[in-house]
């Protein structure tokens, strides 16, 4: 059980690089006992010293190396802004690795990753980890952004067999959203058969599911929600799964973050 290995750690900020107008790549020193994180798992970070903001903020793990944990932080509010203002040498309190399920790939299979925005993060971790450990077949990343400013996929060009980029404003790559590009690539036979993995806005994942990629063995997605405990205790971050009798809630932090896309009750989720 990964569950038993979570811990609370003080890490040091080794490097903070601005990688787009609103995003920062943070490299934290890896605590000795912090081990074995899996793609889709995350850490929760204490942002301020006082009560503002009150809650920790969850961030997916983008990479784990011998000495460091890599995160990607997009500034969207006060917590992320504070985190982005931290400097080399600052101490950062994290809890992790959190998340009770993760992306998995059978040895040798192909993997198609579909990402919107910072949804890229757990997918990059999966690609890197599997390339090292599992010798997958082809790995394709499909990445969607509003415009070319915010293309975070440039951070990980070498981690996939192929990277396909879509921008809404057409300034780079496919002109449209990432699901439209997915359909286009599928129709044109560019994507290999295999497993489908996604992470991004609810609308994106839902559209991807609706686009009915029958040629894929399965489609797993990593979800996000506002979190308090991060360990499945408080029942604050639940997602409704389809169920015959009544509603079936699962916690994203404890049972997720990774779910089969078709198990999710999309009518009730992400309104």
């Amino acid at each position, binding site marked *: 059980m990964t*569950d*038993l*290995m*979570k*811990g*609370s750690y003080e890490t040091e900020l080794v490097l903070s690089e601005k990688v787009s107008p609103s995003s920062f790549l943070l490299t934290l020193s890896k605590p000795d006992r912090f081990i074995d994180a899996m793609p889709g798992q995350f850490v929760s970070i*204490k942002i301020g010293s006082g*009560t*503002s*903001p*009150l*809650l*920790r903020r969850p961030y997916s793990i983008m990479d784990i190396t011998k000495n460091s944990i890599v995160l990607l932080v997009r500034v969207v509010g006060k917590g992320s802004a504070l985190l982005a203002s931290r400097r080399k040498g600052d101490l950062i309190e994290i*809890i992790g690795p959190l998340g009770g399920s993760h992306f998995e790939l059978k040895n040798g299979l192909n993997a198609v990753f579909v990402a919107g925005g910072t949804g890229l993060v757990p997918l990059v971790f999966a690609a890197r980890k599997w390339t090292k450990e599992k010798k997958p077949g082809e790995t394709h990343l499909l990445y969607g952004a509003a415009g070319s400013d915010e293309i975070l996929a440039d951070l990980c060009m070498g981690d996939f067999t192929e990277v396909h980029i879509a921008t809404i404003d057409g300034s780079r790559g496919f002109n449209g959203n990432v699901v439209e590009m997915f359909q286009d690539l599928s129709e044109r036979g560019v994507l290999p058969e295999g497993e489908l993995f996604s992470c991004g806005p609810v609308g994106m994942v839902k559209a991807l599911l609706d686009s009915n990629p029958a040629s894929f063995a399965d489609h797993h997605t990593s979800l996000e929600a*506002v*979190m*308090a*405990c*991060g*360990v*499945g*205790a*408080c*029942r*604050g*971050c*639940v997602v*409704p799964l389809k169920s015959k009798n*009544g*509603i*079936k*809630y699962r916690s994203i932090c*404890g049972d997720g973050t990774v779910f089969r896309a078709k198990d999710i009750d999309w009518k*009730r989720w992400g*309104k």
Partner: protein
Amino acid sequence: MRNKNFYIGNTIFKNPVFLASGPAGYGIEYRGLINLEKLGAVVTKTISLMPKEGNPGTRLQETEAGLLNSVGLENVGARCFFEDKLPELLNAGAKPVVSLACEGKEEYLSLLEITSKQKKVEAVELNLSCPNVEEGGMAVGTDPKLLRWYITKAKLILGNITVLAKLTPNVENISSLAVVSERAGADGITAINTLLGMDINLESGGPVFDRVVAGLSGPAIMPVALRVVWEIAQVVRIPVIGVGGISSVEDSAKFFAAGAAAVQIGTAIFYDPGLPERIVDSLEV
């Protein structure tokens, strides 16, 4: 206040630092982050007779120094709790206090029956903030008659098990309700549960929560909790367990000074899971 054995009712606790009901779930989810063995007790998430799926829609919203939650008593139900969760918590070395929902009268009586048969349950906490499903929907703990009924039944059916009455602060005169609880036989009073609050989503223009109203916890409510504990401690002889916004060792010291015999930590474990242990350490002789 010191780390030494003390009694509430017939139950002995090794120190006066407990986890509050709810934020820590069944306790076991926090293994690895909180040393449960070291605490006076772990009050488990409120359970009802049958499993409850909880509220739809958004369940959490941060506010200034506070947290609104609309979890809605999601729980696995008494059977699964006693069969699976409680043994695991005991295994982890924790001292459990089982929080019971004060639901409709029939369900409640069955819940008490089941609980009374559990050999490992030494103490319960009655969550008197549960809505009165039979009438209106205000918390059962706002009505002295109901309050008396729920506590009397618990004492009657649970026999030697210690009964804590956890009061809702959303009333005019909580100390009179504490006196009612004491007279009805409660072995201790826990105060406070969350304040009623709400938030608006400015994008939609509507309430953040499907149920509109949610429970406010965290440092924001501490002055209210401290006042309530003080008021209750003036009028009852049974121990008062203080809860509400405790976020530091100093905060806990304020509750002890206000008359609390023990404290519970809720929301703070989200941002500082090491706090309960630090409070225990601060009380070392």
